[in-house]
């Protein structure tokens, strides 16, 4: 089974006079067929990791580390090799996928496009294959939808269309970056159902980047929570939501509406000047002297991984 | 505590850095700076006084690098002093045209409704008026001078600026901070000039530059037609005199080609500068904002 293996990934951006330390020595394993939710708040680096995998980062980026996919280090692959991989083997659905739809082209054609480009299929065949796939994914009233334009549908519908079109080449890994961002409750539910469906039918691996707790709870197998460019905890879905171990994960749960909106003290971390040692220590109620000096190691407890001295 | 001088300097350095991304623009900027420098320090740079007379119709030589004209004036001196007139007319016309266009565009775009309709109708009327013929007619009945050119061209050229400003204002007025400003209770006047205007800067500046360029060409054409001010010589006027007073016939290329070249090169440099501005608005936003004096420094000490 395919497997994505990220080893010691560090990403930095230079903007003017500042350097943004977006990702700091992240290691992650994504096994085939599983849905891994990479969660965290704005600026924690989760989108950067997604973009690093398919190498869609801007020019002034320095990347260190390795990302193994099917035995190959993607960070050392050539642009041509990557073009082969992108779309066919690793599909990425970027933020605001609805915006990725060309408003003046019919939906059917846009879904069929990857087939025409990558598999060099003739248009008619591609469109009919796209139709078949849309059938599978429970798009009702198909005939009209294929011939329709994006603006005739809601945001949620367009989002689902993009996700569907990313499936058309049967990729091994799908990376979905904030697929429910900007959608209201109804549309969110639609997209959630869509992703859950894909997971069941295709058995592809899904790397879900999100800050939407409901989405992760619904469909993720494992949860990895990030803060300030580091992964703080990785755990099985049920175990994580029942009882998170890392102080940040705990504090974040307490901020949720169902737990009373209890705020985490202190300002969010500035990515241009992150704290030394444990990145969360200035805001942590359990901090000890060690936390300000050393970076906590990743500790394995009961099949989970936590980066905190509390569990050392 | 930020000092005022370094932050402005940094801003200009960044401008150069930014312009450097497009080598043509950097060249444009440097050339334009040279022309500005020449215009400002004409008195020091010119080899002779503007009214000093020598033997007429001389070819280029050691003492007269570009020879002399029919009145015996040194052509190089004329060229250098001419830069002042040409640039001044260009810049003042652009100021008038852009200023008018800015105000009308702001008012029209923000207030909309009947004000907008009326102002746009007026703009359309002005658009129909042919500029050069109007200047010619005015020049016939009034004393021809550069102020006439500046006034007439300025009062006719605001039309293109108005449309650009108006569409930008239509965009801006829908933005959240305008609604916020209205809710906070700011007067419409404040919103127009203090909130909306700074956001139109990146539309105005390239337009201003291009208007300077167009105005310089227009002035040169009008001077060549004999409608310029005979007392202060612009580059266009120099070409006119070369034509009128026998420079063309005598093949005195050193008389009419340098001013023509100057006009062309100067206009080109301005256009190239405005290209880089249009191409990287985001980066120039940072530079522009770096030039605004620090609030804390202003208020705290």
């Amino acid at each position, binding site marked *: 089974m395919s497997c994505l293996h990220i080893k010691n990934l560090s990403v930095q951006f230079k903007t003017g006079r500042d350097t943004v330390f977006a990702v700091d020595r992240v290691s992650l394993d994504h096994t085939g067929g599983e849905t891994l939710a990479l969660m965290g*708040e*704005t*600026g924690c680096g989760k989108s950067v990791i997604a973009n690093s995998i398919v190498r869609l980062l801007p020019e002034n980026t320095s990347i260190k580390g390795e990302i193994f996919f099917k035995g190959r280090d993607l960070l050392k692959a050539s642009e041509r090799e990557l073009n082969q991989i992108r779309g066919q083997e690793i599909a990425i659905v970027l933020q605001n996928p609805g915006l990725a739809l060309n408003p003046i082209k019919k939906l059917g054609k846009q879904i069929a496009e990857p087939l025409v480009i990558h598999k060099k299929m003739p248009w008619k065949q591609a469109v009919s294959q796209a139709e078949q796939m849309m059938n599978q994914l429970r798009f009702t009233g198909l005939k009209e939808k294929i011939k329709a334009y994006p603006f005739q549908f809601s945001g949620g519908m367009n989002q689902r269309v993009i996700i569907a079109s990313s499936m058309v080449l049967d990729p091994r890994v799908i990376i979905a970056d904030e697929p429910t961002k900007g959608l*209201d*409750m*109804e549309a969110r539910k639609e997209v959630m159902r869509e992703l859950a469906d894909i997971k069941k039918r295709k058995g592809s691996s899904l790397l879900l980047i999100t*800050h939407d*707790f409901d989405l992760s709870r619904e469909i993720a197998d494992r949860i990895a929570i990030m803060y300030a460019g580091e992964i703080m905890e990785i755990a099985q879905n049920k175990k994580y939501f029942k009882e998170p171990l890392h102080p940040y994960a705990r*504090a*974040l749960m*307490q*901020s*949720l*509406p*169902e737990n*009373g*909106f*209890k*705020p*985490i003290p202190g*300002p*969010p971390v500035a990515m241009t000047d992150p704290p030394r040692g444990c990145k969360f220590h200035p805001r942590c109620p359990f901090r000890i002297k060690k936390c300000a000096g050393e970076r906590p190691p990743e500790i394995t407890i009961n099949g989970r991984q936590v980066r905190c001295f509390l569990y050392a | 505590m*930020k000092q005022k001088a370094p932050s402005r300097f940094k801003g200009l350095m960044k401008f150069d850095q930014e312009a450097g991304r497009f080598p043509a623009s950097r060249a444009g900027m440097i050339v334009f700076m040279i022309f500005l420098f020449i215009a400002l320090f004409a008195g020091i740079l010119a080899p002779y006084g503007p009214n000093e007379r020598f033997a007429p119709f001389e070819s280029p030589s050691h003492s007269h690098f570009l020879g002399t004209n029919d009145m015996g004036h040194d052509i190089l001196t004329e060229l250098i002093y001419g830069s002042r007139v040409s640039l001044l007319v260009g810049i003042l016309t652009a100021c008038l045209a852009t200023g008018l266009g800015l105000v009308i565009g702001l008012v029209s775009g923000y207030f909309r409704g009947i004000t907008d309709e009326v102002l746009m109708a007026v703009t359309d009327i002005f658009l129909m008026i042919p500029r050069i013929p109007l200047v010619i007619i005015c020049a016939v009945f009034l004393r021809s001078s550069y102020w006439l050119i500046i006034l007439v061209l300025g009062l006719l050229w605001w039309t293109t600026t108005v449309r650009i400003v108006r569409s930008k204002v239509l965009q801006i007025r829908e*933005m*959240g*901070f305008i*609604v*916020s*400003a*209205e*809710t*906070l*209770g*700011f007067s419409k006047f*404040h919103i127009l000039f*203090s*909130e909306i205007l*700074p*956001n139109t*800067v990146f539309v105005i500046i390239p337009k201003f530059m291009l208007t300077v360029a167009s105005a310089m060409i227009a002035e040169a054409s009008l001077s060549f037609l004999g409608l310029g001010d005979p007392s202060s010589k612009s580059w266009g006027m120099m070409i006119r005199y070369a034509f009128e007073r026998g420079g063309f016939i005598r093949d005195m290329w050193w008389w009419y080609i340098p001013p023509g070249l100057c006009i062309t090169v100067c206009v080109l440099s301005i256009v190239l500068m405005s290209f880089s501005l249009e191409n990287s608005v985001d980066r120039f*936003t940072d530079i522009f*904002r770096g030039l*605004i004096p*620090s*609030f*804390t420094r202003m*208020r*705290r000490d």
Partner: protein
Amino acid sequence: MLPLCLMEIQDVSKTFRYGLIKRKGRSVFNNISLSIPSGGTVGITGKSGIGKTSLGKIAAGIIPPSKGHVLYKGKDIFKMQKAEWNTFRTKVQMMFQDPEGALNPMKTIGRQFNAVCRLMGEKDNNKACKRIQEVMDQTGLSDEILDRFPNELSGGQNQRVALGRVLLLEPEIIILDEPTSALDISVQAQILQLLKTIQQENRISYLYISHNKKLIEFMSDTIFSMDKDEQDSY
């Protein structure tokens, strides 16, 4: 002691008309009535697109209702004299969903605060600075943001700035239109706590608009739901 009723929305309806000749109407909502007491929070909830923002804007006096009245301290705001309107404008404020959108992208935060001070008629620089400092302390902002532009600040910081600006005017009512829905979860929790604290310290009434039921329940004393099947207050 009954709380003083600051604002009353009476039988307000809104229809948006479009089309040049045949002015077609799209009715957003009909006959909404509610009142905002002094110092309390009234929550407005409902699905997206149901007209909550329009109702908020009507209450803030930004757009007029098609039918009905909005009374501030007993007077209809759309029929007020200039002086009364100016007072209303100062005392009733609104905060919006997009934190960065509420601020002028070409002005530093310091200048934006200062502009509001001058609006209040504060000509003395020192007093203005003092007032700005007070408001920044209340909203948890540090000095260094004064020289920054809105796009250099985080969403949470921008929302604090927006709140600070509003507080400079010493309002009595703030209408909040989903102020935290664009923010991260932990930042949202911080802002909500801040809003509660400020409400107590400054004795301000809130009209809180959100589609999130749990949020509304957390923030409000009384809730008004605009969903068609639940149009009642509870």
